[in-house]
């Protein structure tokens, strides 16, 4: 039974804060999915529902058609790796031992190879590890669990760039050998975006975007040229942002351009280029603060 994920109109509150406000999302099994959102947008809340650490106040969560809450068999197949999480007095070997007990799919040999690759000392207490090594231990536990749904909640944030790239390589290589659902939330959008088959963007507890990564990329277009020509071209379409340099204006458009529109732009002497995913994300979620304050 493949573990498709289906959330329907899910609400989750912490006191007066509405962390998830009617979020609906379907994820097919065995894809690598990037989960993007600003701080406080509800990414961690969403993942803790899937890991059944919480139950929604309203709406339904289904994994492989089942309600995951207090379903121990299902939960042994779902892993959520946060930034910290382990008991700080344990040492690395203890953490691996309990992971092995918890997870029927645990691969101890792979865990050992990963610890060597990330140079994590085995005998040290978690509390005495550097932030980067703690993150590497988290990544190791997440990968070696081989859980059918594996979620990394900014796990690799504390790793330096070479270690992060080593993590991306390992993630991809192991995914190719053992396809499974991977949900990765990150602020390093651009460096990892090419690994994502799909991108989910949530904002203020709601789903903003969910599509194939290439489709999401194609939604952002940058139009650059003389200000008046740019304005004529962008009249009546959604403009996410504008920046001026002298009389040159760069406008960020939302929506895919038809070949006809592209031709018009060329004839008007405008430069057309795609927007990096990170920029698109920034534009789409930038008004959060304004509206809240």
């Amino acid at each position: 039974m493949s573990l498709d994920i289906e959330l329907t109109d899910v609400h989750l509150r912490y006191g007066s804060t509405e962390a998830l406000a009617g979020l609906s999302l379907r994820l097919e099994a065995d894809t690598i999915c990037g989960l993007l959102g600003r701080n406080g947008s509800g990414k961690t809340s969403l993942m803790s529902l899937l890991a059944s650490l919480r139950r929604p106040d309203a709406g339904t969560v289904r994994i492989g058609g089942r309600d995951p809450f207090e379903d121990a068999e299902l939960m042994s197949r779902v892993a959520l790796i946060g930034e910290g999480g382990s008991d700080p007095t344990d040492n690395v070997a203890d953490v691996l031992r309990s992971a092995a007990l918890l997870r029927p799919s645990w691969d101890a040999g792979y865990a050992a190879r990963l610890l060597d690759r990330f140079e994590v000392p085995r005998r040290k207490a978690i509390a005495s590890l550097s932030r980067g090594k703690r993150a590497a231990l988290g990544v190791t536990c997440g990968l070696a669990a081989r859980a059918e749904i594996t979620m990394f909640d900014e796990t690799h944030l504390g790793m330096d760039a070479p270690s992060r790239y080593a993590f991306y390589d390992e993630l991809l290589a192991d995914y190719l050998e053992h396809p499974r659902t991977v949900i990765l939330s990150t602020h390093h959008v651009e460096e990892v975006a090419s690994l994502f088959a799909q991108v989910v963007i949530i904002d203020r507890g709601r789903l903003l975007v969910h599509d194939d990564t290439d489709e999401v990329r194609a939604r952002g277009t940058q139009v650059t040229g003389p200000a008046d020509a740019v304005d004529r071209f962008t009249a009546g379409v959604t403009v996410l942002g504008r920046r001026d340099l002298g009389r040159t204006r760069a406008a960020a458009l939302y929506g895919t351009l038809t070949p006809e529109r592209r031709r018009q732009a060329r004839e008007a002497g405008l430069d057309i280029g795609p927007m990096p995913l990170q920029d698109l994300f920034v534009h789409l979620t930038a008004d959060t603060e304004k509206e809240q304050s």
Partner: protein
Amino acid sequence: MTGFDDRSPIYLQIAEQIETGILRGELRPEEQVMSTNQYAAHYRINPATAAKAFQRLVDDGVLYKKRGIGMFVSPDAPDRLRARRRERFFAEVLEPMVAEAAAIGIPLDDVIRRIERIREEDAR
């Protein structure tokens, strides 16, 4: 992180790389191309993206699938690709060049003279 630029979707860039390889003779008709997984691992991209590039090339008749074995270059792929790139040449290479020449004030007669000189040199 992949050596791809932001100018177009990655799957299109992969498809173009394979096409260029065929046009240059680095990939010959009936030769097997790398698998989606090999592409994914090599370029650090999701295998679904690599699969999308292959699917496009299959749809265009550039590659064909042998079930259970893999992807192969179609016998007529070089001819097909040359024909398609010829169609694109004027719109994508020549017209922008003419526009650039106009923008920086190079008379078209100068451009034509230069092309004729190159042709004479090549003929020798």
